């Protein structure tokens, strides 16, 4: 079964038509979704793309380098507030989008290095708990930095953020092109699509680069990696900073898309959700991560039907569907780790590593041979 699939994946007669079909599908998606399900679903599609960028950033840290980051949303928050503060009436500063996006990535990157430098020379467990604390601290600062000097505007957050504008082309207006009208959400969808493809491309190239191999080596066995001449601390720091910068970019886009940001969007729950996307789909495997994102963004929409279902089955609503969302996430994290530790759509390499009982680094041949594929 998998053998056939592997063969099919290499067959140009199959690959090119499939590729073109996928491209057409992605281009036509907003029109189809709008027509079949309503405008709200175009927005959901745009959010899926945004989360793909975020999750791929976390995937570098967790999936490739094997560092558990539980405060990833902090970098998302940094990117979002950086954009919000420098492109809104809050300070009266309106810097252009093309300048803020790379700057936001750089700022998030600096935060990543600041956090990673003291902790990355220690064991992974410490990193997990320090990042958890860091995420919470950033949120505490966002909530409280409104007095005596009002920097973040406290719990109310920043609103009236400038919409994203490329030169004279504002994404916040409907445009007509070739006789087809493109409403606002469509514009964002296409911008996010382009950027997501770019992020996927960067991720893929990183995975197979010298750095990517070094990350995988560290994940497998840090001591062996160090013995092979990898500067483990710097390479881990690089993974951390790179992941953070992806988070910063997504944050900026989020701020521009939403038009307002508030500390509420950056709770620990959000970090856990992004982690779920990466883990459920398949750590270190780009298509797996994308699958995870699609499932988890659509899940809350599907859970909405649980309310009426309970009404119908037992006569009253026992548990609010919104409350069930996280319950399902928690359960899913446990079950996936116990039953299918490599995720729902794992990479071939990763599957072999995690399915073996015992520590694969010690038992039998390792997957070094396959790492190049």
């Amino acid at each position: 079964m998998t053998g056939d699939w592997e063969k099919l994946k290499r067959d140009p007669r199959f690959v090119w038509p499939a590729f073109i079909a996928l491209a057409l599908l992605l281009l036509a998606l907003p029109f189809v979704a709008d027509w079949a399900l309503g405008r709200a679903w175009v927005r959901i599609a745009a959010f899926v793309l945004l989360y793909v960028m975020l999750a791929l950033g976390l995937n570098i840290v967790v999936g490739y380098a094997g560092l558990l980051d539980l405060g990833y949303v902090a970098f998302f928050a940094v990117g979002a507030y950086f954009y919000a503060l420098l492109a809104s009436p809050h300070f009266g500063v309106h810097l252009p989008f093309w300048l803020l996006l790379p700057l936001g990535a750089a700022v998030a990157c600096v935060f990543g290095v600041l956090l990673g430098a003291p902790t990355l020379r220690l064991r992974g467990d410490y990193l997990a708990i320090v990042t958890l604390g860091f995420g919470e601290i950033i949120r505490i600062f966002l909530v409280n930095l409104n007095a005596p000097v009002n920097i973040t505007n406290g719990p109310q957050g920043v609103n009236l953020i400038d919409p994203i504008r490329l030169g004279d082309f504002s994404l916040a207006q409907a445009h007509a092109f070739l006789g087809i009208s493109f409403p606002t959400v469509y514009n964002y969808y296409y911008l996010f699509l382009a950027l997501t493809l770019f992020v996927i491309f960067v991720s893929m190239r990183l995975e197979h680069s010298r750095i990517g191999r070094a990350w995988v080596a560290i994940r497998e066995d840090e001591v062996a990696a160090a013995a092979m001449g990898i500067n483990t601390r710097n390479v881990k720091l690089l993974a951390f900073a790179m992941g953070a910068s992806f988070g910063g970019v997504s944050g900026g886009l989020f701020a521009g898309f939403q038009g307002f940001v508030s500390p509420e969007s950056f709770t620990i729950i959000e970090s856990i959700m992004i982690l779920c996307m990466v883990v459920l789909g398949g750590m270190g495997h780009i298509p797996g991560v994308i699958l995870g994102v699609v499932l988890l963004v659509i899940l809350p929409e599907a859970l909405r039907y649980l309310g009426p279902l309970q009404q119908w089955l037992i006569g009253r609503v026992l548990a609010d569907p919104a409350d069930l969302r996280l319950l399902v996430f928690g359960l899913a994290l446990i079950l996936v780790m116990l039953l299918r530790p490599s995720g729902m759509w794992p990479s071939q390499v990763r599957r072999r590593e995690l399915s073996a009982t015992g520590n694969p680094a010690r038992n039998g041949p390792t997957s070094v041979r396959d790492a190049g594929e």
Partner: protein
Amino acid sequence: MDIFLQQLINGVVLGAIYALVALGYTMVYGILGLINFAHGEVVMIGALVALTVIQLLVGSGIALPGPAIAALGLLVAMPVCMALGYAIERVAYRPLRGAPRLAPLITAIGVSILLQNVAMIVWGRQYHSFPALLPATPHQIGGATLNDLQIFIVLLAAAVMAALLAIVHRTRLGRAMRATAQNPEVAGLMGVNINTVISITFVIGSALAAVAGVMISAYYGVAHYFMGFMLGLKAFTAAVLGGIGNIAGAMLGGLLLGVIESLGAGYIGPLTGGFLGSHYQDVFAFLVLILVLVFRPSGLLGERVAERS
């Protein structure tokens, strides 16, 4: 002077509670080398179960003295937490023993989220007020106040910790625990049933968590489904500060962290000229954690290097 003394007293009381929770982290870490992320949620479940029992008793109209009601609440909460601790180890950690490091960490987070949300569905999102069952008669000491509840918390915590030390250092079970912590394989060869020892470690840690949960909700007068998160984070910091894996270290770290936090929250306003206020209290634990990890990763009393491959 009186502010200093007052904050010191508050810090010691808070620190005693942190120490009890920190013991749960440190015992599990000492034996399994694993951070039990769900431990803070066990504290939360302990507090809420005790609260429910107390509310039932108060509502039933049986005339019992306040301390007896509180004790009954605790007596129900402890076995519930012990069973929970056992179940967590059995379901989420044991199948993954020997798996790559990341796997048990992720299930631990899953368990934590699961418990939080089950608690939210059972007890709701609101803050529950914890009835004042224990007398809080204030005493004046050198310009600061100290009430009976605070004295009681510190004494009970000290007694529980003394009992734990006695178990670990004086009994056969304690010897088995220490042997397993040193080297599980060899301990197994010497006739120690490692699985039992690990289960018992979780059970004892969870019992301590139940005590801490009742204490902290009695102290602050509230219980909430999300209370375990910050508490767990701080208790973990306390364990790292004292030297994770070291039982005496967890006690020392807990007390120190409580005092640091309390003094920090009391003095941050005047020190920064009012720029930062006491709502930054939660930041101190985190700063302590970072500083310890940078300058002394093995903690105050820890001797082993943090890296154990």
